């Protein structure tokens, strides 16, 4: 009688369209989580804003206004003021958002692909391959990712791709381990045995049977990795390893802003607040996703 899982929840769960209802129920649970839902709307807004940056931002991010340098908030024509060069803060925030999201999603996509490949091979093939691949992840885990970032950025130049790769490389390890663990549990299930007995190839089994079952947990970790990647982008920018100026990045805006904390505080607090809000929103969406998939939780 492990709590109520077999009771009303399970009673409804055992239907023919089990899989579909699994997702739709997750979605229902997610929607009912007010914080997560509001966060999701906020994140969607952010994504739309990032995509539509050229139409939303009143100025180009590098366009200067020599007559309105260090303009305070609510200046005419510069709602959120300007920086030292007279560049519109609002526009730079919007483009900075674009940088942050592009890097974060790109990095996570890259790391996801690597993680799935490695985790799947390690978990499915097992044996030496498993040991070898897990040895690599062990080393990567202990490796200061910062050095990778530096080398990538120096070799590739300070491009957005380098930053993306640098972040992706440091975040695939945990994901790969997760995929492997999932594979190991799913591999033992009967339907996989059955498929194998019917002569399905390893690749088919991996892709058709094992992977879909590993996706739930992976989705959850990815949803948490997104805000982490946004934070990492800011961190690299702080170390001078971020995207190339004048392309705005919240990290570099924050680090620039810290030197104006006394002279022009809005240069710091605007990007910092937006950064924090974005991070929070993505984290809460992640929380929501986790809770939605967490069927062991009590049904509310």
């Amino acid at each position, binding site marked *: *009688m492990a709590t109520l899982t077999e*009771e009303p929840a*399970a*009673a*409804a769960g055992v239907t023919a369209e089990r899989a579909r209802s699994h997702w739709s129920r997750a979605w229902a649970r997610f929607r009912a989580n007010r914080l997560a839902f509001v966060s999701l709307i906020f994140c969607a807004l952010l994504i739309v804003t990032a995509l539509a940056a050229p139409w939303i931002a009143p100025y180009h991010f590098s366009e200067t206004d020599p007559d309105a340098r260090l303009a305070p908030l609510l200046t005419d024509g510069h709602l959120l003021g300007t920086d030292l060069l007279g560049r519109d803060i609002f526009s730079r925030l919007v483009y900075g958002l674009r940088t942050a999201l592009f890097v974060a999603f790109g990095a996570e996509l890259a790391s996801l692909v690597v993680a799935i490949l490695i985790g799947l091979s390690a978990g499915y093939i097992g044996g030496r391959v498993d040991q070898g691949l897990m040895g690599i992840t062990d080393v990567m885990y202990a490796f200061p990712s910062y050095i990778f970032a530096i080398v990538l950025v120096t070799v590739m130049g300070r491009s957005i791709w380098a930053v993306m790769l640098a972040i992706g490389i440091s975040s695939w390890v945990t994901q790969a381990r997760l995929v492997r663990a999932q594979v190991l549990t799913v591999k033992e299930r009967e339907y996989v045995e059955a498929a194998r007995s019917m002569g399905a190839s390893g690749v088919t089994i991996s892709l058709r049977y094992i992977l879909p079952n590993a996706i739930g947990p992976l989705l959850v970790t990815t949803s948490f990795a997104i805000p982490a990647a946004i934070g990492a982008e800011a961190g690299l920018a702080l170390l001078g390893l971020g995207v190339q100026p004048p392309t705005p990045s919240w990290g570099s805006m924050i680090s620039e802003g810290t030197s104006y904390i006394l002279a022009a505080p809005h240069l710091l607090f605007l990007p910092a607040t937006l950064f924090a809000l974005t991070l929070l929103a993505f984290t809460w969406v992640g929380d929501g996703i986790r809770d939605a998939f967490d069927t062991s939780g*009590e*049904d*509310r």
Partner: protein
Amino acid sequence: MSASSLEVEGLRTEFVLRDRVLRVVDDVSFTVKPGRALAIVGESGSGKSVTMRSVMRLLPKTGRVAGGRARLGGTDLLGLSERQMRKVRGRDIGMVFQNAMEALNPTLTLERQLTEHLLWHGVCDRAEAKRRAIQTLGDVGIPEPEQRIRTYPFQLSGGMRQRAMIATAMVTQPSVLIADEPTTAVDVTVQRQLLDLLAQLKARGTGVIMITHDLGVARYFCDDAIVMYAGRVVERGPIRQLLERPAHPYTAGLFSSTLEVGARHRPLQPVPGAPPDLAHRPPGCAFHPRCGQAEQRCGQEEQPLLPWSEDGQREVACWKAVQHV
């Protein structure tokens, strides 16, 4: 400890979900007398466990008892304060869980788990508690109880673990023991030993409620039975009579499937189809969509429990069954 009966009357339990209220237990009544054993039979999701947790008042936060009484020796448990109720749990009513592996705390020794409630309830002091714990472990057939008491649950075999679980419930010598599928997780030989153990307990005057979907077990051990479907009792009566002549089509289906060889360890799927989603309870008899004999009337009329045998020992909630008496 005085031997007292547990009398449950018209128990209703609801779960308050976000957008609706589910009635999970609806008008359930039964009585367990000292030295008697009651089987509660039904598929997963039929409300057996919730019934027992309602009595123990251990419902999750979203659950609430909406009506009824549960009297133990004259006291209505449902009316007690949480503080008073705590004294009942573990002392007057003991509980045996299906899987001892999960119900025993993996990081605490058996001693701790066998004695802590003796201390909580102030039954005796620590030394005496330990003595009793060792005694009880011995009673349930665990060899070298003095040594074993220092071990952790995972260091025992499955059967031993289940014995230890029973010992935990027994150590306070409760008047009523609720056993939730106590033998499902163990193999057949162990099952038999465990049942004998419970039988000894029963012989000493303890009333036992056994939740099970294993009719073999129920028949071997229990005196009476109630069959639950979708939160309601659909049939009640002495276990042997029930087995010999099931009155409700659901009961009949349940029995025919479980009597097959090797069916024991499979979840019950006696009849094609799944139990109803309680949020969308079918009108009339909740079983009618799955019932091979259903007629139009079944989908229209609620089915109350009606006497089925002359001595009044048997009741069934099916108008067709009653008709055929």
